[in-house]
């Protein structure tokens, strides 16, 4: 009976739960799904992390390559983030080049990296004007059940914290680079931005961490990214129904709390990886 009701009238089905201040999966309106993090599972990548937020699974692998810096910024390296939504993760995505959602997510991640200054691109420079690192941050969704952006930000942060770059020296005779794979060093992560996503139902009810179904039925979505100092790195609301400033304040408070939870989780996982080695 319930299943039939859900298929025929999905919006009514969700409303009947929201009326009782809970959601079909048993969560509170302001409750995130269980978040798990696995760091360093891909040995072919220089850094990697797998994040699960409820059913949503995202993997981020970082590959470092060598390149020439641009003429405009001779002392800076590159960070190239890309988000991919392969047809594997949900039946809504078709094979082929990335669709609008994947492209918008890539741009969002690029903006978060730039705004939060979590890595100074100066740190990636090996020799000014000659050689620098390019960090390709490839983020791939393996299971799409809503709240992609939050999962991507956590995966990126986890993978960057795990990244170990090999030592590079410039050979004075040939003036070519020489790489020593045995000697590796970590990256300096200056900030820890974490996102929190929200959905607005029927123009008034706010829920956090929406599932794919809730995202489809909602009238507006919002992602707030904060760092450990409580500064906002991004308030991304691509449209939808309007929000008052007071409501926004409520979101931001929840986002700062979420940042603390996730940072604690990342630190814990990093610590357990280190002790295991």
């Amino acid at each position: 009976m319930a299943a039939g009701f859900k298929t025929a009238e999905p919006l009514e089905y969700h409303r009947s739960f929201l009326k009782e201040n809970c959601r079909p999966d048993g969560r509170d309106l302001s409750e995130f799904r269980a978040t798990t993090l696995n760091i360093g599972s891909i040995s072919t990548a220089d850094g990697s992390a797998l994040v699960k937020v409820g059913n949503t699974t995202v993997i981020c692998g970082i590959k470092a390559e060598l390149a020439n810096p641009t003429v405009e910024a001779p002392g800076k390296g590159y960070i190239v983030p890309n988000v991919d939504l392969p047809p594997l993760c949900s039946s809504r995505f078709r094979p082929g080049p990335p669709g609008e959602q994947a492209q918008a997510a890539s741009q969002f991640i690029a903006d978060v990296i730039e705004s939060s200054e979590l890595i100074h691109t100066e740190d990636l420079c090996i020799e000014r004007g000659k050689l620098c690192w390019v960090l390709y941050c490839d983020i791939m969704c393996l299971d799409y059940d809503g709240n992609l952006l939050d999962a991507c930000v956590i995966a990126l942060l986890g993978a960057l914290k795990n990244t170990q770059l090999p030592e590079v020296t410039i050979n004075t005779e040939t003036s070519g680079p020489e790489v020593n794979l045995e000697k590796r060093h970590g990256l300096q992560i200056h900030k820890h931005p974490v996102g929190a996503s929200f959905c607005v139902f029927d123009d008034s009810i706010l829920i956090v961490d929406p599932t794919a179904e809730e995202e489809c039925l909602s009238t507006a979505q919002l992602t707030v990214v904060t760092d450990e100092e409580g500064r906002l790195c991004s308030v991304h609301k691509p449209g939808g129904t309007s929000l008052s400033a007071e409501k926004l304040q409520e979101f931001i408070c929840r986002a700062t709390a979420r940042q603390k939870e996730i940072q604690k989780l990342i630190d814990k996982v990093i610590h357990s990886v280190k002790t295991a080695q």
Partner: protein
Amino acid sequence: MPTDTKRVRGPEVSQSPLLFVSKPATALPSHGPRTDGRPRDQVDVRPVFVRCGLVSQAKGSAYIEAGNTKLMSCVYGPRETERKDETDMKCGRLTTDMRFAPFSCPERGSWIQGSQDKDLSLMLHESLQPAVCLHKYPRSQIEVNVMVLENSGSVLAHAVTCASLALADAGIEMYDLVLGCAVRQDGSSYVVDPTYKEENSCSSASSENQGGLTVAFLPSLNQISGLQSDGEMTEETLTAGVRTCIEGCYKIYPVIQQALAKAVRRAAPPPSES
């Protein structure tokens, strides 16, 4: 070169640091035990870890891990076919898509599907098709997606196993499971389930009998559904290789059966005895 406007772009050229390693990599030994401790010339496949039903959105899914090779497969469908030509009316269509994550190999891959991915997709398709009862799904298509998360050798063999497991998990009617196993012939000796390094290095000096072989095998029907070989091998070596692969398939068969039984039990728990 056309620029990719649908992704965030980096510098025009960048090179892998592996090209500038000061000390050359040590060549793999051509005799004695292999780098991961397995003996040579014996049917010793890497222990596999398999799990079904990990992806919530898919009809069926499977994950396989053999050594460092990590693969994931999802099955969607049967759903209405996109192409409506004559042949689809009588029996269903199986589509396969195999991709490598950009970080899966020692050198970074491109996002754009290369010819290698397409070749592997086709081989996967040909290995799986004989096992699926496609006549039971007229006018519909079944999609198989495989994603290689980490490539540590024998990718096609494990992709076949993983995809057939995902098909079974999706409840698609099949004649049999399809298991894959690979062998790498190196002169007079061979290695079963080779790693990435073993696949891409040639240690013995003789140019004869150098090659790789992947077999897709239906264990309960005792039939071969796919065979792919490259390199140069004599007839005897090839037949011996096929036999070795079949033996290798039987080694992982109980693990696959167990994973499937576990998934079925979870989906439909047996009635309690009270």
